[in-house]
């Protein structure tokens, strides 16, 4: 009940018409970002973050989170009309969305995608509204050891749940930690890994890394494939929308399953991309028309979209309550909180209730606004995609360069951005995951100081991570996650030899 009261107060924050305006600006920018190659949710928020430093934190987070919702919606447009996933989490949407567009059912597919996205997000926001205060009040009791254990679990989950090779996940993550350590040590004031280079005094800013890795890297990948956007026309009118809405309730089970998978994967840092694939796979297996999947089945659009949006939304739950982002975009938003002087974590609910509940209330309204914006403006965004890439590419590089510069007003940062772009390109092609790198870069200092404080408490003995049942169970789960790929491989080998036995 208390959550409801706080939520109503949160809606009060939205009474400010400026905040509603920022919301619509954010959604529109977000859809644009989601549609354009090279500009994704994480990267778009990173570029626009410096522009919000002068805004009120509540208005700023409302606008930035709306960019995030907009990007989640926008990814579906390119997947369905152009067979090009604008975002990694909309890859699964292309499987049935594009065939539907080819059959002239683009309007139906788009309506289904947007509506399922909306349902997924709404489900996740409701979960978040009631679960977040509980998790936060529970987490208030956490000491440095528990906090470090939760962070350890986050990073080990990448190894256990990710589909990339575990060794590469570890290397990528540790590179993030190492980059985070560059610069002045916040505890002792010593300079680390600057090698006498004055510019590195403040270390690598994660925003520069995000803009380079996701922005420039993506442009290079898109360029490599040689560009030919062959889009289907987007005819969407109220009649198609209403007709689609009339048949969608039939797939309530698929939606519900997608939303639950999405929430689970968003809260544990599995992320929206694996969630969308998992939901698609489940829908295919359980659907009566499973064999039609991949040939333009509307259920194949509903499943991944619900899960992706639910995951994207619920990724904010661990960010707000524990200070641990569930996705790269949530990591960038978390970085924003730190810059605005807000300490993410359980204390946020106590000290900044206006901010937290204003944000949660904006998720409800923002997603309704998002649904309206995308349903009415699809043709405009589809037209933008028909602009040749040789015009879009230099403009995006320019925007990325400006975004990198405005972080610290440093020219050198633009060069770093370019280097991160090359790293992003090589890592993507060699299946090094980028999300753990970004998360480690954002959380590095926090994780390190929690670890150090825990060590100081225990006088340097690692036994503090086994000192009570809570911390030891989190650590145990973390180690299980870390070893999971090895265990799974061993189990599979065992099964294979078992099945070979009778043959021998």
């Amino acid at each position, binding site marked *: 009940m208390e959550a409801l009261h706080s939520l109503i107060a949160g809606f009060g924050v939205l009474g400010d018409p400026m905040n509603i305006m920022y919301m619509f600006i954010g959604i529109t920018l977000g859809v644009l970002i989601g549609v354009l190659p090279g500009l994704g949710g994480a990267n778009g928020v990173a570029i626009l973050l410096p522009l919000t430093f002068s805004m009120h934190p509540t208005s700023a987070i409302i606008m930035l989170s709306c960019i995030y919702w907009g990007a989640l919606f926008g990814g579906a447009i390119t997947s369905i009309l152009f067979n090009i996933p604008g975002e990694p989490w909309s890859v699964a949407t292309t499987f049935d969305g594009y065939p539907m567009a080819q059959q002239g059912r683009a309007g139906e597919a788009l309506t289904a995608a947007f509506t399922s996205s909306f349902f997924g997000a709404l489900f996740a926001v409701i979960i978040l509204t009631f679960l977040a205060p509980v998790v936060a009040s529970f987490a208030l009791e956490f000491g440095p050891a528990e906090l470090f254990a939760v962070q350890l679990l986050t990073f080990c989950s990448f190894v256990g749940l990710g589909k990339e090779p575990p060794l590469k996940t570890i290397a990528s993550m540790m590179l993030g930690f*190492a980059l985070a350590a560059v610069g002045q040590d916040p505890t002792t004031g010593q300079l680390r890994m600057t090698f006498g280079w004055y510019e590195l005094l403040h270390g690598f800013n994660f925003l520069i890394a995000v803009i380079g890795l996701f922005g420039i890297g993506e442009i290079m990948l898109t360029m490599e494939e040689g560009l030919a956007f062959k889009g289907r026309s987007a005819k969407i009118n109220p009649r198609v929308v209403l007709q689609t809405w009339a048949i969608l309730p039939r797939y309530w089970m698929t939606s519900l399953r997608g939303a639950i998978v999405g929430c689970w994967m968003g809260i544990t840092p599995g992320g929206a991309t694996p969630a969308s694939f998992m939901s698609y796979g489940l829908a295919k297996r359980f659907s009566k028309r499973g064999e039609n999947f991949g040939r333009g089945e509307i259920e194949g659009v509903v499943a991944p979209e619900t899960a992706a949006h639910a995951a994207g939304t619920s990724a904010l739950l661990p960010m707000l309550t524990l200070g641990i982002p569930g996705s790269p975009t949530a990591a960038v938003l978390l970085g924003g909180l730190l810059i605005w002087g807000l300490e993410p974590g359980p204390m946020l609910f106590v000290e900044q209730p206006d901010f937290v509940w204003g944000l949660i209330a904006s998720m409800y309204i923002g997603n309704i606004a998002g649904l309206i914006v995308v349903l009415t403006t699809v043709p405009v965004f589809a037209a933008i995609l028909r602009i040749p890439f040789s015009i879009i590419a230099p403009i995006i590089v320019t925007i990325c360069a400006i975004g990198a510069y405005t972080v610290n007003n440093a020219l050198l940062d*633009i060069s770093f951005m370019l280097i991160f772009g090359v790293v992003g390109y090589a890592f993507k092609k060699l299946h090094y995951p980028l999300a753990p790198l970004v998360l480690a870069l954002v959380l590095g200092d926090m994780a390190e100081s929690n670890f150090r404080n825990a060590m100081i408490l225990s006088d340097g003995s690692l036994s503090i991570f086994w000192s009570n049942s809570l911390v030891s169970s989190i650590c145990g789960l973390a180690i299980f996650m870390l070893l999971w790929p090895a265990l799974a491989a061993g189990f599979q080998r065992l099964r294979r030899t078992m099945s070979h036995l009778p043959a021998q």
Partner: protein
Amino acid sequence: MQQDEESNDNGLVSTRAADVVVALILIGLGALVVTDSLRLGIGWGEYGPKSGYFPFYTGLAIILASLGTIGVTLLRRGKAHGYFVSRGQVVHVLKVFVPSAVYVLLIGFIGIYVASAIFIAGFMRWIGRFRWLTIIVVSLAVPFCLFLMFEIWFKVPLPKGPLENLLGY
């Protein structure tokens, strides 16, 4: 180690070679982290753990994980490895990377607005082969809009060069 049997003349760098090279670079970076951590001290100081305590292990983990990647890459025989990039792809990627690098260099000398105009115009002419009229309109309109947005609306100063000084900004 076995030789690759298939020789596709389109391929320039095999995925296997790229995997090993990237892992070696990571090992180099890991070694840098480890040596600097050793300089700072990885033990226990007056204020608790010394500055190198935490980074030392991250550096060590990079080295071990990358050694593992090299091992896995070299041991994986017979499977299809494919190519990291083909000749045509490298050309495509360089077509966007080289102009971008030149652009970044130019920003320092002539400011971001003029550099952007030259970059967009050059890219559109070289890659897109647009008509000059289209090129001029786009390459002037984009920096102008950016100027309005950043300098006037958000009051965020971006790097400027001689042209802006001449105009009094």
